[in-house]
């Protein structure tokens, strides 16, 4: 088995989570890489939806933006931006929404807006919401992909851009959010899932070679850990080959 990077482990873990025939709302970067690896491995019928309006895009290479011409040219249908949000995302037609985050809290709520200071005079101004609030609200479930560190995994968000499980179990229902919210958080250290009782993100799996102490140290709150902590299977040669060929071809 080859050696691999933490980034590669994340991409492959994310790809594995996507099931054949499901539909997936993908942003650029790691989500798009993972979805396109999944299409080449176990999920050739995965339906990729980009917020630029491309439904069922089948890119040969990794797109560099969510609006690459390749996505439009290979899509089953290209619709307007209002239509992709109103007719496709909002009614809950899309199985999985893939999101990243600058900050994330123990209930999977997300900040991609500002860090530090206050909203009108922030220390760091981030890009903002984009499609995320409604992806987080309306996809049947949400997968988050975030590098684990105390800067990203914070006890309290500086801004709630997109809602995960709010302040805990039952909160999504109270807010009227139709989807199940974050069911999976993939980091460079392991995998977290919401506790079915409390909705708190719980470490259920560590990637090969990562220790529980490392995961705890990279978390800005007292990390909940599953009773039976699993170990992620290392990337197979085939997975690495597919990922690397795709990445290399896209340079």
């Amino acid at each position, binding site marked *: 088995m080859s050696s691999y990077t933490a980034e590669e482990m994340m991409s492959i873990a994310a790809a594995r989570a996507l099931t054949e025939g499901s539909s997936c709302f993908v942003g*650029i*970067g790691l989500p798009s890489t993972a979805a396109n690896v999944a299409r080449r491995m176990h999920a050739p019928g995965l339906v990729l939806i980009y*917020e*630029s*309006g*491309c439904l069922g895009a089948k890119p040969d290479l990794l797109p*560099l*933006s*969510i*609006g*690459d*011409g390749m*996505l*439009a*040219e290979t899509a089953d249908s*290209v619709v*307007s*931006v*209002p239509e992709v*949000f*109103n007719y496709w*995302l*909002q009614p809950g037609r899309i199985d999985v929404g893939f999101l990243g985050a600058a900050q994330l809290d123990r209930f999977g709520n997300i900040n991609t*807006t500002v860090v530090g200071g206050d*909203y*009108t005079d*922030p*220390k*760091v*101004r*981030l*890009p*903002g*919401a*984009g*499609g*995320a*609030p*409604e992806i987080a*609200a*309306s996809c049947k479930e949400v997968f988050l992909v975030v590098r684990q560190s105390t800067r990203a995994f914070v006890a309290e968000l500086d*801004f*709630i*851009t*997109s*809602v995960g499980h*709010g302040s805990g179990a039952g*909160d999504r229902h109270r*807010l*009227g*959010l*139709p989807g199940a919210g974050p069911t999976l958080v993939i980091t460079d250290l392991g995998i977290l899932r919401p506790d079915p009782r409390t909705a708190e993100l719980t470490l259920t799996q560590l990637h090969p070679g990562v220790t529980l102490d490392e995961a705890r140290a990279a978390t800005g709150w007292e990390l909940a850990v599953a009773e039976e902590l699993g170990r992620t299977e290392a990337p197979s040669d085939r997975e690495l080959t597919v990922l690397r060929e795709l990445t290399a071809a896209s340079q």
Partner: protein
Amino acid sequence: MADIVSLREGLAELVSDGDLVAMEGFTHLIPVAAGQELIRQRRKDLTLARMTPDIVYDQLIGAGCARKLIFSWGGNPGVGSLHRFRDAVEHGWPAPLEIEEHSHAGMANRYVAGAAGLPFAVLRGYVGTDLPKHTENIKPIECPFTGEQLTAVPALNPDVTVVHAQRADSHGNVQLWGITGVQKEAVLAAKRSLVTVEEVVPELTPRAGAIVLPSWAVTAVAEVPGGARPSYAQDYYERANTSYQEWDAISRDRERFQEWLADQVYGAEVKS
């Protein structure tokens, strides 16, 4: 019926200081040349609306043309930050920038309501987020049939919308294809509109995936080949990904940005 004009004339005629201006194009067909011409005409106090401010608004903000930004995602796609935007928000340079911030779904629906002649649009959105705390333009609304609570956003009706398209015919009918984004809504929502096009052709031929903005729904059309660079115009030219990376370096530093502005905008030949 749309007038066929030069970019310079068209913008001078249609855009005044203080206007609410929308320039749309979702990754594809971004009206960059028109943005630079607004800088060259030294427009001031503009309220700029755009879902994804991108390079085109980073330039306008850095050049001091904007008083306010209405947007939903302010990054350099595939690269990182928009440094001029950040500098304005974080440090008030070259001037403070008021912001009104939405989600993509909210912005898209603001244009939809504008295009539809309605004062507001309804969506499932924003619930539980901090966004409604910072603007009066996101409000709850109750379904009169089910009692369910949803979210309303007001119509966005720009004074002027500027978009770029592949082509127009000599009557000013505009045709665009590929990713068409929110351009139709942005044009229909506006009081006035200018469309820059790659070429004016004698007659539009039907094309798969194309939409047509009829001449009578557009104020003016200007032929500006390459007017979307460094973004792309499908079937005309590709996205210049390196320019987006280079912009990161140019825009990161105030001095370097100002040199760029002097050389590439104020000092550049007018495109048409």
